[in-house]
């Protein structure tokens, strides 16, 4: 029998990313006629466990207290042990796209004798092999990889996948006691960036600014627009690299991969590495002076105009419409 495992971090709960990974796992499990198991690294809240068990056939929790604040070395060890506890006969182990999961994937694949792949936007089985689709060359190409060894350990562009459906009966929940070594690289401090509102990855609406803004001040004008429509603020790499806004605002290949209902790109030309970060947005709107900017080939509607002329007026009109 071939099953599918998804591996999530307990402290993150059953967030949109975990829902997407579980959804991808369920679809893959159905395609091979197997079960979906969830491997939970670290303690999780009761509500999250209930939601996971409603989505899965089995839930294995490694709830060791030392995993609450994630130590990457121990999280890897936990994933390896939970994999074995679940029976180990998995065709695939799927992970989310948070920092920790990204670094676990290639190492877990190595330890399990499998193949690894990153940032998959679509997956399916082809015989014994998993095919994973992702972007290459900074978003200029789409590539499909054939993973030759089982299990295929893949971290997914999690929020791009539909959430897992609830099952008729909840899956069995088992607690596993893990034996963890002291980490050789130990996280000793966290400077959590000030998070106003929701995480960019979970935002429904995002207003992003780019190089064309020319400095940090215009982001204040964009903030008024964002506040009017309940949006979070993002930025292109150019704006972050220039120090106009914090690095954790960056949307793109090496920044956040976002999936809002509405993405408003202001003074962003649409370099392929930026498109890669906003590619899962449902509706994209663009404001740019250059009618030939690539962003206009990737948006539903837009306006060719200087943002300085548009944004204050737009904010005013949207305020009026909101009543």
């Amino acid at each position, binding site marked *: 029998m071939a099953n599918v495992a998804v591996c999530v971090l307990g402290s993150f709960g059953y967030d949109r990313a975990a829902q997407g990974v579980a959804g991808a796992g369920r679809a893959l499990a159905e395609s091979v006629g197997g079960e979906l198991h969830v491997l939970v690294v670290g303690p999780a809240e009761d509500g999250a466990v209930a939601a996971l068990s409603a989505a899965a056939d089995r839930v294995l929790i490694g709830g060791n207290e030392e995993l609450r604040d994630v130590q990457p070395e121990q999280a890897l060890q936990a994933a390896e042990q939970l994999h074995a506890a679940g029976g180990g006969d998995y065709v695939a182990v799927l992970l989310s796209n948070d920092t920790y999961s990204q670094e676990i994937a290639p190492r877990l694949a190595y330890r399990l004798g499998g193949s*690894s792949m*990153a940032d998959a936007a679509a997956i399916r089985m082809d015989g014994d092999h998993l095919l994973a689709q992702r972007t290459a060359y900074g978003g200029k*190409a789409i590539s499909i990889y054939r993973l030759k060894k089982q299990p295929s350990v893949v971290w997914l562009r999690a929020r791009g996948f539909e959430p897992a459906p609830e099952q008729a009966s909840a899956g069995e929940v088992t607690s596993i006691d893990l034996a963890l070594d002291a980490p050789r690289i130990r996280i000793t401090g966290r400077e959590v960036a000030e998070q106003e509102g929701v995480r960019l990855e979970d935002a429904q609406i995002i207003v992003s600014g780019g190089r064309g803004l020319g400095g940090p001040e215009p982001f204040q004008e964009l903030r008024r627009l964002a506040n009017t429509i309940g949006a979070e603020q993002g930025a292109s790499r150019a704006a972050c690299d220039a120090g106009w806004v914090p690095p954790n605002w960056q949307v793109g290949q090496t920044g956040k991969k976002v999936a809002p209902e509405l993405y408003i790109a202001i003074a962003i030309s649409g370099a392929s590495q930026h498109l890669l970060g906003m590619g899962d947005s449902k509706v994209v709107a663009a404001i740019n002076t250059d009618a030939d900017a690539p962003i206009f080939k990737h948006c539903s509607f837009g306006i060719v105009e200087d943002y300085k*002329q548009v944004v204050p007026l737009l904010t005013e009109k949207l305020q009026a419409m909101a009543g």
Partner: protein
Amino acid sequence: MRVLVCLKQILDPDVPARDFEIDPAAKAAKRGGANLVTNIFCENAIETALQFREAAADAKITALCYGESTAEDCLRKAMAMTVDEACLVQRDGNTNPDAAAVGRVLAAAIQRLEQDGGPFDAVLVGRESGDWGTGQTGGALAEELGRPVLGFVESLAPGNGSVTLRRQTDVGIEVAEAEPPFVVTITNNEDNVPRIPKTRDVMMSYRKPLQKLSLADLGLDSDEIRSGSSNFEVEEIFVPTDEVECELAEGDTLDERVDQLARKIHEVVASIG
């Protein structure tokens, strides 16, 4: 302290999309008029290592590359940036080996260099490459070496018997203590922008040692390594054509055009509720 930086030579990722073409037989990008360059995160890694050496005083830096003979340019440039010495493992066979194959080759080369010159306290690799960008090599290499690894690191600082790492995560900065030997993958920040080599250092780089090794020298002269595809291979690659028709706001006055835009945005926002 000994520090090793792994480099990858890639097609210049800044080639505009309109000049980008796929070679269907090779299942990779056509070279076209593009330059070969050092992957940017690898250059950030060199800069990070140089800054660590400035703080640690006695550190020595080695650059290592698994690539074609053209990759000698990357290693010369690294030495012009004042890296102390370099080693090229000549690639043979598949020009796009998978991360597992690259990890094995780099690990074997590192162990060979350590036999001759003593252990490397820190091994630095770029977080991902600007061509395939799967970001798997650091993890594969660390496992081959049996050493711990931390990803997305932006700086290393000498500590008391250990090295203090700062790294970027989804939720902010993390600080970590690492006991050598260890591996890190390097990301960019405003402080590790690669320096421009000085003319004098460019001249000097030709006097620095550049060792060349073959797969046979490393005992890796096997079909598995040469094929470079035991873990994964590219099944298909294409340039996406999912461009959408953009509806541009029209109207005689700015006010009319912005009004149209506002209505469309309002419609989407209202549907989210």
